[in-house]
């Protein structure tokens, strides 16, 4: 059976095909107004003749719908007295020192939030039974106000979902999507659970329409969608639980980068995807790590997401001097229009312009030579700006790169140091157009020993979709002291989750043999309100104390602990096609050298060779300073770094090469 991985980007839609162990790629222009168009076109050109094929797809439909405020008209049903939960949030404001601060938009207007008489306590005991007449009257109201989607979030439903389940059952006949919080996020903390449920209700109809159109064209049962947790789900599930695809695209990149790095012998990876306007970084420690603390568009999304941290800084970030005389880079970006100064229209210096000034971009080989960068224009604008600041233009350009690096470094610190990981143990995997220009400097300042730059960065994400396992996460909030909970009881909870997991995996068409599970416990000291995750095994208690000590420097085995949530990750393995290999060569890159450029380094101009990426052979070595250019990206090999091409065509940069 043929498999197709598809990544829909802003400019290109990338497709990776796999059949009979062979891998090949295809690229078509994206069709932003109707993203399905490009996907269908790309598939039509290669694959429709195939008897049977499956598509794994990264979709930005949910993300864009949420960020652009274009989701469905949602009604929320909640416990009476708590209709404003969504609006009050956690009471805090996003910025401290700003009189004009506002909250992120509330996705359900006041008139569409309905309270219902019922109450369950924190142990799941029913204090006030659900009032069926109330449900009836709300549902008849809903029918008359014309909503497109319904969210249900009742207090303490993680402890006892029976009331929610009854409302859900009553609402289904209305024929519109219904999202119930005990299904979407069965965990305590009502606001966060409510947000996840409402976001799901908000984006699911968009997903429904989009997937409907795709399925109509390719046939039912062939589509799988990349989730934010790094695994894929069937289109049928994605239509109902679209919130799980909110980081679909970036997740594909992380999965692809991780697979490529693992193939090259690196299990501990920090991915670094620097584009024009923003940069995504993520950390993978052996396994893909998920967080349940992510924020998207200012809203907390507690569903499991790959821990991808985004900063608003990229190649197109604008450079300016603030009133106090500090050099700032971003967060405003030149975007595609007007673009950096060197593209011919922008008037304000960007990070890309600084690289060009320093000789780290080859103006004649940008985008494979399709676009010539205007060096003179940059020279004039940079000189004028430097005069205004009272600096030498070259020093200024170096400074721009330094400040951009500082922002990137901070982003990597957030996902590594702040989460208790030492970046020195990790390999930096850089992809995205601008990443290769910063990778050496970043690795150097974080003392990371190795950088991996895979070939065909644009296709990495599509490849990631292809090799992503089917992954489903299940959880049940317990909130119980370990004193009164035996390991056997925990295993019983896990079995219940497993039953559900296996059933749903079979619905996804997976064989029982290919399914694996991992059970974990979110634990804390009694009275804490933040949890650590440990494997659900006999020695879970001592593991918790050890992890607490490792993470925070202290532990107290005498203190009572509690289990907040039992989690189960169910994974259905998929075939991992081997990556293509490149032709062997000698250590000397010889003919791949296509020219030289003068590069400004440490107060002087030095000559650096320029290599064409596609001409490099396995075994080739090049010493910094050097440039490696390819269609959509340039890598700057800093002095003191050596680049080696491995059998897959990855550029592996290490420190300590000959100077």
């Amino acid at each position, binding site marked *: 059976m043929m498999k197709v991985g598809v990544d829909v980007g802003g400019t290109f839609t990338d497709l990776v095909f796999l059949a009979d162990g062979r891998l090949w790629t295809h690229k078509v222009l994206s069709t932003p107004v109707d993203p399905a168009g490009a996907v269908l076109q790309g598939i039509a050109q290669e694959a429709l003749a195939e008897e049977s094929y499956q598509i794994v797809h990264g979709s930005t439909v949910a993300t864009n719908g949420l960020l652009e405020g274009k989701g469905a008209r949602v009604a929320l049903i909640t416990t009476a007295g708590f209709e404003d939960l969504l609006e*009050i949030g956690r009471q*805090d*404001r996003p910025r401290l*020192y700003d009189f004009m601060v506002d909250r992120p938009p509330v996705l359900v207007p006041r008139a569409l939030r309905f309270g219902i008489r019922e109450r369950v306590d924190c142990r799941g005991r029913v204090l006030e039974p659900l009032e069926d007449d109330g449900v009836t009257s709300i549902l008849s109201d809903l029918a008359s106000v014309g909503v497109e989607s319904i969210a249900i979030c009742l*207090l303490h439903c993680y402890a006892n979902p029976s009331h929610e389940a009854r409302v859900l059952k009553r609402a289904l006949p209305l024929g519109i999507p219904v999202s119930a919080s005990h299904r979407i996020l069965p965990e305590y*903390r009502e606001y966060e659970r409510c947000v996840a449920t409402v976001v799901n209700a908000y984006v699911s109809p968009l997903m429904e329409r989009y997937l409907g159109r795709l399925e109509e064209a390719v046939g039912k049962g062939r589509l799988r969608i990349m989730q934010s947790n790094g695994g894929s789900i069937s289109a049928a599930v994605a239509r109902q639980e679209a919130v799980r695809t909110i980081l679909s695209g970036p997740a594909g990149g992380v999965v692809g980068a991780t697979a490529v790095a693992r193939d090259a012998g690196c299990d501990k990876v920090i991915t670094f995807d620097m584009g024009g306007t923003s940069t995504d970084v993520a950390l993978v420690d052996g396994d893909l790590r998920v967080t349940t603390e992510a924020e998207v568009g200012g809203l907390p999304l507690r569903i499991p997401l790959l821990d991808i941290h985004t900063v608003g800084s990229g190649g197109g970030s604008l450079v300016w001097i603030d009133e*106090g005389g500090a050099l700032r880079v971003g967060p405003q970006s030149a975007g595609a229009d007007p673009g950096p100064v060197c593209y011919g229209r922008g008037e304000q210096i960007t990070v890309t312009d600084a690289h060009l000034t320093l000789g780290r971009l080859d103006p004649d080989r940008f985008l494979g030579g399709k676009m010539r960068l205007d060096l003179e224009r940059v020279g004039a604008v940079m000189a004028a700006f430097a005069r205004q600041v009272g600096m030498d233009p070259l020093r200024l350009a170096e400074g721009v790169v330094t400040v951009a690096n*500082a922002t990137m470094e901070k982003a990597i610190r957030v996902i590594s140091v702040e989460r208790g990981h030492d970046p020195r143990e990790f390999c930096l995997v850089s992809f995205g157009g601008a990443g290769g220009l910063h990778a050496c400097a970043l690795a150097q300042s974080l003392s990371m020993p190795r950088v991996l730059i895979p070939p065909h960065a644009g296709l990495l994400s599509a490849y990631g979709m292809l090799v992503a396992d089917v992954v489903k996460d299940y959880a049940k909030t317990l909130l119980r002291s370990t004193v009164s909970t035996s390991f056997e009881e925990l295993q019983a909870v896990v079995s219940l989750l497993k039953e559900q997991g296996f059933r749903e995996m079979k619905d996804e068409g997976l064989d029982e043999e290919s399914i694996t599970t991992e059970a974990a416990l979110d634990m804390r000291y009694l009275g*804490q309100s*933040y949890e650590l995750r440990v494997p659900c095994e006999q020695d879970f208690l001592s593991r918790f104390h050890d992890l607490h000590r490792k993470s925070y420097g202290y532990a107290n085995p005498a203190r009572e602990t509690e289990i907040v949530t039992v989690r189960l990750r169910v994974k259905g393995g998929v075939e991992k096609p081997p990556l293509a290999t490149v032709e062997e060569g000698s250590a000397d890159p010889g003919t791949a050298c296509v020219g030289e450029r003068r590069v400004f380094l440490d107060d002087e101009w030095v000559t650096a060779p320029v290599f064409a990426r596609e001409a490099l052979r396995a075994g080739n070595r090049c010493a910094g300073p050097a440039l490696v250019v390819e269609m959509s990206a340039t890598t700057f090999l800093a002095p003191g770094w050596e680049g080696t091409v491995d059998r897959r065509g990855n550029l592996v940069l290490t420190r300590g090469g000959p100077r």
Partner: protein
Amino acid sequence: MTPSTDPIKLEVFKNLFASVAEEMGVALCRTGHSANIKERRDYSCAIFDGRGEMIAQAAHIPVHLGSMPLAVKAAMEGRPMSRGDTIILNDPYRGGTHLPDLTLISPVFGEDTSSPLFFVANRAHHADVGGMAPGSMGVATEIFQEGIRLPPVTLVKGGDLNRDVFDLLLANVRTPEEREGDLEAQLAANETGRRRLLEIVARSGAAETRRYTEELKAYAERMTREAIRRIPEGCYRFEDYLDDDGVTAEPIRIAVAVTVKGGQAVVDFSGTSPQVAGSVNAVYAVTLSAVFYVFRCLVDFDIPSNAGCMVPLTVIAPEGSVVNARPPAAVAGGNVETSQRIVDVLLGALAQALPDRIPAASAGTMSNLVIGGTDRERGRPFAYYETIAGGMGARPTRDGVDAVQTHMTNTRNTPIEALEHAYPLRVLRYEIRRGSGGRGRHRGGDGIRRDVELLTDAAVGLLADRRRFRPYGLQGGESGQGGESILISPGGERPLNSKFQLRARAGEIISIRTPGGGGYGRAEGHA
């Protein structure tokens, strides 16, 4: 800017120091035990240079802002500090703000330095530090009733915990286990800061690092001066009142005269009421924080919160007044209530100079609710503390936000599902108090109604304000509605004062309704 200041290094060091303070905050939040730290995030972290001048503070809680430097100063004066030491304090008259805020200060020595290169400090609000009422925020008349009082004392000596101090402290609080966990977290936060600062020194060298601490202070000073220059020169006066001190019914006046001239501002609180018997007395540190906050909001850019921001500001607070209390005045409410009113009067004064930038008054009270007693089901004592948000004042160009923390605080709520799990309490309503915002061209934000039922007999205390003197509107906008507190019993409803302490029975309901913000501009049809 000195001719040799490097704009690049300035920006790089700004990021570096800011991330140290932020990482300290992450460490504290992750390791803290109480809902107050983890869920509500009632803490702040900051770093200081070797002279005790603040270099950076993470954007946590504004009321801690201006006051942290005084804590470090008091620690430096109080105790000689050696390598591996940590000082603890909460005495409002020696570097603190109010007793529940415990501050930990640690010096950071280089490998071979004999004096500290830096200090790191963090402050966290503990749910109970002893005293006459659970939660330590009761209607006291002397500081001795408000809890255990710690002048700067050594909590950690040369890396070893001083068990004597620790045990003495824990013996004086209602929930010692939780306190112990939170203090461990505070120690972990300072350790994170220390390690990170030494990494920076190792990377950039001590001389360069020291130089940029100075440059960053000068930078923040320049930015603040620029902001002050944009205020038309002149003297602007305003006054407003706290309803009462919880002991007598006497209103308490806060008066201010802000004189702006030549890129400097003199903020003079002469004419403010003398200190009072109840706990709404603010110590000088709190007043400084409020002034600092208001001017910090006038700077449009993201600048480091450091000692430089204070240089263009002069604060005159008459000694023995409610904005500069002397011992043994009770002060728990000064930090949370009076600080908000100080902001209100400052904004009222500045609105005359900057009518297009200053918002109408926000709720002006943190509505501090404390419930404590013994939880029979769980077999342990409990102390629950919460601040309840209110309406934001309308802005010159748009409505105020509903149900949001404003000005001197930004703590989150405790999720209802977390609260009911941890305490013998049940929340019956948590909703926006519709129509409580003042009318105007732009409407003031609405307050909140939060009803909490007791499942056990307990002591209940409230420190709130803005019942009589309501949040003012501006430029013709109407005042926001005042707050209300009501005890709902099976026998009926009983209105309560804004500040009270009472014993309530299981089954009774405390209903708190917080004020709405003031409106801005004349409402249509009300000309």
